[in-house]
């Protein structure tokens, strides 16, 4: 039972990790609190639905992140760059407004009906691990989620391009003086963040419902995770998402009456003990 509990919380956490990493990336490296991230995830899911219908799930998993990266490029040039001298909260609210608009456009195109993607055949059965039968898709989700985010963290931490990205995030002026093309790297970060939302959107298809409310459900949870993880730290976000997923799943089993409160309590406890979050700038910022 406990093993199953952990496995289940890992599945939820994997999706959250991907979303929160994207959010942490653009927050930690680009200094933007992107309230529109949920809308990007929703766009990823709907695009995933459309593309998967034509090309199948696997190609959608490849194409949609690329499409979202393009959206990220548009976001960078049309919004973030022109507004770079504005305060955090102003930019955050602009992304909120854009997220609302994007959501409405999606509803306009797809209508309000919920949709779903079927998992490809090899992922639809279940496997038996340690005597427990467990859906293959969940295993896949966990591997994908953890895998992509760990590689992201490794890239940032241990490669020189990762180092330059971190330098740009802390002081673009100094980075430029050192000969780093900060505009290019900012663009990379924004599009990478959007691409992560795209991956999460496609992966959510066979697991969760694709519907007009999906952005809002996720964004608050992801904000909580990013903040628990520590300002913009990817590794922190990974740990925080695992913690969050576990607390939420465990809460719904052991404290069903007050389960809805559990994530907020977690946030308050962590922040009151360590206002900088768990990652506390270990990886970035």
């Amino acid at each position, binding site marked *: 039972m406990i093993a199953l509990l952990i496995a289940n919380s890992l599945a939820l956490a994997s999706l959250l990790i991907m979303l929160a990493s994207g959010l942490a990336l653009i927050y930690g490296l680009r200094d933007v609190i992107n309230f529109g991230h949920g809308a990007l995830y929703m766009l990823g899911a709907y695009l995933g639905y459309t593309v998967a219908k034509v090309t199948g799930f696997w190609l959608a998993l490849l194409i949609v992140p690329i499409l979202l990266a393009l959206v990220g490029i548009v976001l960078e040039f049309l919004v973030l760059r022109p507004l770079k001298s504005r305060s955090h909260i102003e930019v955050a*609210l602009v992304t909120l407004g854009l997220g*609302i608009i994007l959501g409405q456009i999606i509803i306009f195109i797809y209508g309000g009906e919920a949709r779903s993607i079927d998992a490809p055949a090899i992922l639809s059965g279940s496997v038996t691990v340690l005597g427990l039968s467990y859906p293959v898709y969940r295993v896949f989700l966990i591997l994908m989620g953890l895998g992509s985010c760990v590689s992201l963290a490794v890239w940032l931490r241990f490669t020189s391009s990762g180092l330059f990205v971190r330098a740009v995030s802390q002081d673009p002026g100094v980075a430029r003086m050192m000969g780093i093309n900060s505009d290019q790297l900012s663009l990379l970060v924004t599009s990478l963040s959007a691409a992560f939302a795209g991956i999460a959107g496609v992966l959510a298809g066979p697991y969760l419902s694709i519907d007009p409310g999906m952005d809002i459900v996720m964004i608050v949870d992801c904000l909580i995770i990013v903040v628990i993880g520590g300002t913009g730290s990817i590794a922190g976000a990974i740990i925080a998402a695992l913690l969050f997923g576990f607390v939420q799943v465990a809460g719904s089993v052991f404290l069903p009456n007050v389960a809805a409160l559990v994530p907020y309590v977690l*946030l308050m406890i962590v922040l*009151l003990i360590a206002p900088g979050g768990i990652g506390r700038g270990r990886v970035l910022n």
Partner: protein
Amino acid sequence: MLGHASSSFRVPAAIVAGAILFGLGGVLPGYLASDFTLKLANEGLLLGLLALSVAFLMSEAGLVALGAASIYGGSGYLFAIAMSEWGMSPGAAIVFAFLAVVAYGAVLGALIVRTNPLAFMMLTLAAGEMIRHVVMLEAVHDYTGGADGLVVSFKGAILGMQAADFANPQHFWPIGWTAVWLIGVTLWSVSRSRLGATLRAVRQNEERMRFSGFNTYVPRVVAYILVNAVAAVSGLLHVLNAGFVSPESLGLGVSTNALVAALMGGTAGSVGPLAGGLIFAFAQDEFGARGATQLLTGAAIVLFIVVFPRGVVGGLVAAVRRVLPGIDRPRGKT
């Protein structure tokens, strides 16, 4: 000599002008505007008050609160529950609700103002969402009505006004108008007082403030209590006017609306957020009639913030300064 004479003449002139504006504004709309317009204006004022509380904390202490709604809605719930469950009179219930949420704000503030701005924002968000969930818990369903909320109607009078009077836009307008003036002027004077200056300095360099002998904690707690008191007044007026409370009034949506209104109007000063509240209320109504509230709201947020970096009021003031240089020059610039 001359400068002294003219400034001592200017102060009473400003007070007289303010008094006239206040008097006219309190009376005229009742004759000129339709019930429907007044109703929207009332809501705009109350949202403006909430926006003012958010804006004050932002511009003075550099902290963004995303939990204003929990105070706003919470005071309404307490007011309703105090009457229906504990049999208080409406007047006593108002005082009780006000004091209770302000006390809650004080405790919360004492815990969270020390953290960094992002943590503060998320802590207020978390505290607010927690309250929204608590209200919907099964255990308190009988008190709060769960997701359905409560219809609040009271018997008896508050300051001589019956429930029906508060619900009547004509009668409510002067109350809202007066509250807005009192609070607007109060916050404006606080921001010009020593407390305001201390808060702004703490926001820029907390450590240097401590090394200058200031207590940097208490002023921020005081500021947080102050803005919560404003939010509570707004919430109580709202419940009197609307006659019901629901979990939505505690939620993130209301808090973001207040934030958006504040930024639309301009966070510096008292007029901006109030104007923002009015703009927001009327705009939402128009958008609704056009059948696309959400889309147009999103577009308006983007447009207003992009076009008016210091809010509509900030933008207007800057424009007036440009056309009439010399008007109200900041001190010391030559």
